[in-house]
């Protein structure tokens, strides 16, 4: 891709096909074509801004930082969920097709309503300090290495959009972003909750079939499937399937069993 930048820096024009429409009204659903002058290093969001400034001010697009930090400008570019501000126009062969995220209801043009995510967020059992954690948490770098990776999430919800379970099936699956959230809490050294039962029963973790699309498209390069979803699945195996772990847990005595029954509530306190 880097070679392509050198081949045709800022020459000519690029054609954008932008999906327009208001809400879910099929009568307004259409593709509009715009021809935008190329500039060196231009990203798709620049082209959208050019359209708004020079061609059609009625085009709606959500954006904020233009630097891949805020997660606002999520869209589907040539079918692939991406951030508009991190997609160089020159990396795309042919016309640039910009569509809203299909997993969420459209408000207008490429702006979608991602509110459903906050309802799911409220379902995840929150951080709960483990017994004896004290007032001031004291832990070491190696204890938070893993959950730090998940803090990179900018909540662009591209993983939710690309996930076929969230997108195409009416399944009770929280989606990749929220498994990442649960994993970041589960792996926190000072957290005392075991969210495995919750993730299996209410979180619908079993719906994930490891096809790794979320991991492929994450703009923050969080290794969603390998580092969050599969470890969460292995914890569910520990809690719900593995007979050896079950025996081990019961042999460890009443104190541990008590802790388990407390954890087994799995719901929010």
């Amino acid at each position, binding site marked *: 891709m880097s070679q392509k930048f050198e081949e045709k820096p800022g020459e000519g024009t690029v054609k954008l096909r932008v999906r327009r429409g208001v809400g879910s009204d099929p009568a307004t659903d259409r593709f509009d074509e715009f021809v935008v002058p190329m500039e060196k290093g231009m990203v798709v969001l620049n082209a959208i801004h050019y359209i708004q400034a020079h061609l059609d001010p009625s085009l709606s697009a959500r954006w904020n930082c233009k630097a891949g930090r805020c997660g606002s400008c999520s869209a589907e570019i040539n079918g692939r969920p991406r951030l508009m501000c991190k997609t160089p126009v020159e990396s795309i062969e042919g016309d640039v097709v910009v*569509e809203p995220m299909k997993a969420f209801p459209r408000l207008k043009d490429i702006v979608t309503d991602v509110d459903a995510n906050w309802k799911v967020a409220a379902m995840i059992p929150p951080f709960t300090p483990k017994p004896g954690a004290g007032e001031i948490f004291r*832990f070491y770098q*190696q204890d938070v290495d893993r959950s730090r990776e998940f803090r990179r999430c900018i909540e662009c919800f591209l993983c939710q959009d690309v996930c076929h379970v969230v997108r195409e099936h009416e399944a009770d699956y929280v989606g990749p972003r929220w498994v990442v959230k649960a994993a970041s809490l*589960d792996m926190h050294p000072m957290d005392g909750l075991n969210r495995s039962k919750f993730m299996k029963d209410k979180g619908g973790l079993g*719906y994930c079939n490891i096809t790794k699309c979320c991991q492929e498209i994450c703009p923050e390069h969080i290794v969603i499937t390998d580092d969050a979803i599969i470890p969460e699945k292995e914890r569910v195996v520990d809690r719900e399937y*593995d007979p050896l772990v079950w025996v081990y847990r019961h042999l460890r005595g009443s104190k541990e069993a008590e802790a388990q029954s407390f954890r087994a509530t799995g719901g929010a306190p």
Partner: protein
Amino acid sequence: MGLRSDWKYLLPYELLEPNWRLWSFVAVLAVGFWAVVAFPVAQFAGYIDPFYSPTVLIVPLPGVFRLTCYAYRKDYHRHLFKHPQGCSNADRGEAAGRKYTGERNAVFQLENFHRYFLYAGIAILPFFYYDFGYSLVYSGQFVLRLGSLVLLANALMLTGWTLSCHAFRHLVGGNIDCYSCVAAGNARKGIYDKQSWLNSHHEALAWISLLTIVFVDLYLRGLAAGLPIDVTFLRF
């Protein structure tokens, strides 16, 4: 789209797609079963066929280990069941009208016992190194031949694949939330980090280790058929 280094442009794109891992696995199962039944070559000139190590009767165990492997799960859910086929999908209709239960139904819940097949896989690993050692000394003197190196390569790849398993990752440290709270926490974090590096190559190792098994089997069959493909490096 994707970041491909230059040499990969020489290959057809389809060869780099993960479905080749799936279909090669299916092919190995079919050809392996047929070959083992129709033309058994359990051993030739001190080389033990990996299908027979330690005995052909346990072949189903590594077979199920691969079937429940997270790398293969990705492949067959994408390319066999097409849930989904790919990630760039303007209007993908491949799931339309089909019921989807993911890994929640009775059959796919068996995936959750992957770790038990891992235990079996680890138990089988030493036999491949035994085969390598046996091929060196089978004749009573020490002899190093090309076939022995092929056996060793196969053993190493199988070890790499087995020990890069996600269930193993959970076992060696993924199940610990607070490394400074447990005994030998630093060492366990170290092991976990190294295993995580290996784990990031799990998909590649899954395929390579499959190819090496087939290669060893074909190599032995070639030798048994009288092909002059073995080279002796050392004999004393």
